[in-house]
């Protein structure tokens, strides 16, 4: 059963790497992004085929289980993404306000 999951995950990771490579060739992804995402999927596949590797890494940080380390890192990344999204939304909202203001001022000039 575990081997089945590992094979499925590896196929998925391969497809993901292929997609990253394609986007990089099309110029949609920069060099840094390409290296990051390929490294990410290689590490994820390593962790799936060699589960103890995450535990070894977790132990070096004083965390008991590899799964816990992944959970903590995931939470930190999700919070960071949420924060970045909020900043982006606030920026967009201010842009919209500027447009609304310009239109309101133009309308009053016409009168």
């Amino acid at each position, binding site marked *: 059963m575990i081997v089945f999951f590992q094979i499925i995950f590896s196929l998925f990771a391969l497809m993901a790497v292929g997609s990253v490579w394609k986007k990089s060739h099309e110029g949609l992804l920069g060099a840094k992004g390409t290296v990051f995402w390929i490294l990410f999927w290689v590490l994820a596949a390593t962790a799936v085929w060699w589960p103890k590797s995450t535990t070894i890494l977790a132990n070096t940080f004083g965390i008991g289980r590899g799964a816990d380390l992944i959970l903590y890192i995931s939470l930190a990344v999700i919070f960071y993404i949420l924060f970045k999204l909020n900043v982006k939304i*606030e920026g967009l909202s201010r842009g*919209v*306000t500027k447009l*609304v*203001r310009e239109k*309101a*001022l133009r309308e009053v000039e016409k009168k």
Partner: protein
Amino acid sequence: MLVAVVPAFNEEKTIGSVVRSLFSQVDKVIVVDDFSGDDTLKMAVEAGASVLHHEINCGQGAALQTGHELAVQLGADYVVDFDADEQFDVEDIKPAVLAMQKAGADFLFGSRFLGEKLPMPLSKRYIMLPLARMVNRLFAGIKLTDGHNGFRILGRQALEKIIITQDRMAHNTEIPAQIKKYNLKYLEFPIKVVYREYGQGILGGLKVLGDLIMGKFVK
């Protein structure tokens, strides 16, 4: 020229009388209708105000900035920010402008704590306003006797320098921060406020804090 800027959102019941009473004190009244769902716009026009209309609801800070920009275009020497809900007293405007001129100040903050003791909800007096003053001091670096009071007067220099980027209620802290940044001369002046509704509660205060923190990261 003395101009009043009144941001308004769903204030059809009070906006007409506020505009009419303002005309006894100022040369021009600008109402910024922030996408009201009622007849605020119509009432303001009927009362004789110059009305700007936001096509979506942007917030009080955004509405004030829109009004200020029109006031600059009209050549205003002084702009008084005035609430649309009849909380403020128009009789405070002229003495406040005189005090500004006498002190040579660029900016005037209305204060509920300098004159006679005004009736206000206890939680506001002892919890919300001390917190607002603390936030102002922390983010703006200016010590004021009042926090988040909407009555303020801008001289021409302040009007040209201060650009409100906080669309919602955090502009009440952003403005003192810009006063400090541009080294504008300011004073506080006692005003009267009659409470018709509570205003910002704890949740509103937390939102202001969130907006101020977020504002540090938005370019």
